[in-house]
């Protein structure tokens, strides 16, 4: 694909994401969402006796279970064709998926040399509104770890085996919230034959 065609496609994705979000999705007040997530995390803190490693895992698992289902909603809504390369995948995630479900567009940064890993810089993370981590959680809790699970689960359902994790978080005193996605491999065997 020539770079101008790529540019064109990326622009259309942005328009598509905005259109779907604006005209095709029912809206709720995001505070309700933020506070509900806050309750879940605080309950987990209680249940796991402030063992933040375990809480991270639990949030990840919850996210994974959301991801394997939310992908169907995403595809039914957008009917986007299969991504031909990981570049397109990154654009779809930031410009369409995050836009449609969370009304934000993370910046894509830090591509690895081999083009198989990139970072999403999330500013204005709606999950962490009104949140301050206690001192004992500052070093170990990834408050929004549910995102990692969601991305992992959703990508897996479209045959992209990825590692997803947080690198930094404003809540932990870093200067930006950065989420890293690394493609392990495309699960070719599981792609339905009718697509080639």
């Amino acid at each position: 694909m020539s770079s101008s065609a790529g540019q064109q496609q990326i622009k259309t994705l942005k328009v598509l994401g905005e259109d779907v979000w604006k005209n095709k999705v029912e809206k709720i007040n995001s505070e309700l969402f933020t506070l509900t997530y806050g309750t879940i995390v605080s309950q987990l803190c209680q249940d796991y006796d402030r063992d933040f490693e375990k809480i991270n895992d639990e949030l990840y698992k919850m996210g994974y279970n959301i991801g394997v289902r939310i992908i169907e909603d995403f595809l039914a809504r957008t009917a986007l064709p299969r991504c031909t390369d990981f570049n397109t995948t990154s654009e779809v995630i930031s410009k369409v998926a995050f836009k449609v479900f969370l009304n934000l567009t993370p910046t894509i940064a830090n591509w690895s040399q081999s083009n198989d890993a990139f970072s999403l810089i999330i500013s204005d993370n709606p999950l962490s509104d009104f949140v301050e981590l206690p001192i004992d959680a500052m070093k170990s809790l990834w408050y929004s770890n549910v995102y990692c699970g969601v991305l992992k689960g959703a990508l897996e359902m479209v045959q992209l085996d990825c590692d997803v994790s947080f690198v930094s978080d404003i809540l932990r005193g870093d200067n930006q919230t950065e989420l890293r996605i690394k493609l392990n491999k495309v699960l070719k065997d599981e792609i339905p034959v009718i697509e080639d």
Partner: protein
Amino acid sequence: MAIETLLIVNKSGGLIYHRNFGEACEKRKKLTSNDYLIIASTLHSILAISGQITPRALKLNQDDIDYTIPYVPGVGMPSSDSSNNSKMSKLGSFKGDDYFKESFTSWNKSGLRQLSTDQFTMFVYQTLTGLKFIAISSSVLPKNNEMETSKNLNLANQIGDNFLRKIYCIYSDYVMKDPLYSLEMPIKSENFDKKVQEMVYNVQ
């Protein structure tokens, strides 16, 4: 285009939903649920086989083929001029008066998409995640001349795909967001049933 039967097959070839509507209810009672399971997995295999036996000429020009399916307005939606306009039910988490309003690309590029017989026409819609939606319609394509038939075939196919994508939208709302539903298992959701029934009724 009256829909008689709707089947949903998961990605491993198991039947997770089947329902007959209208007259077909009586006619197809002879089939046991076991029969339906077998039909579903047979269709799953046929879909896979049909993907493997693409004509060589087609394989070479695959990039030139247009897989876009135009949006057909109003498929399965209550007619706007009816008097019960105010009663129009909401479309789950979808905003607006229809689930989508633009043309879309088919994910099913070389598999079985339609099966026509003297008695019925079957439409297959496959999603990116490997889920298959199958609708059997009682309408039969008239066999006048070839030109006419292929035009009708195309239109019927477009309506079929539009209808089944809407069923997919309903599935994504009422099945995927049901916390008590476990993936790949049979669907036992009353809300889903109701919505599907409404849509099938609107098509007829």
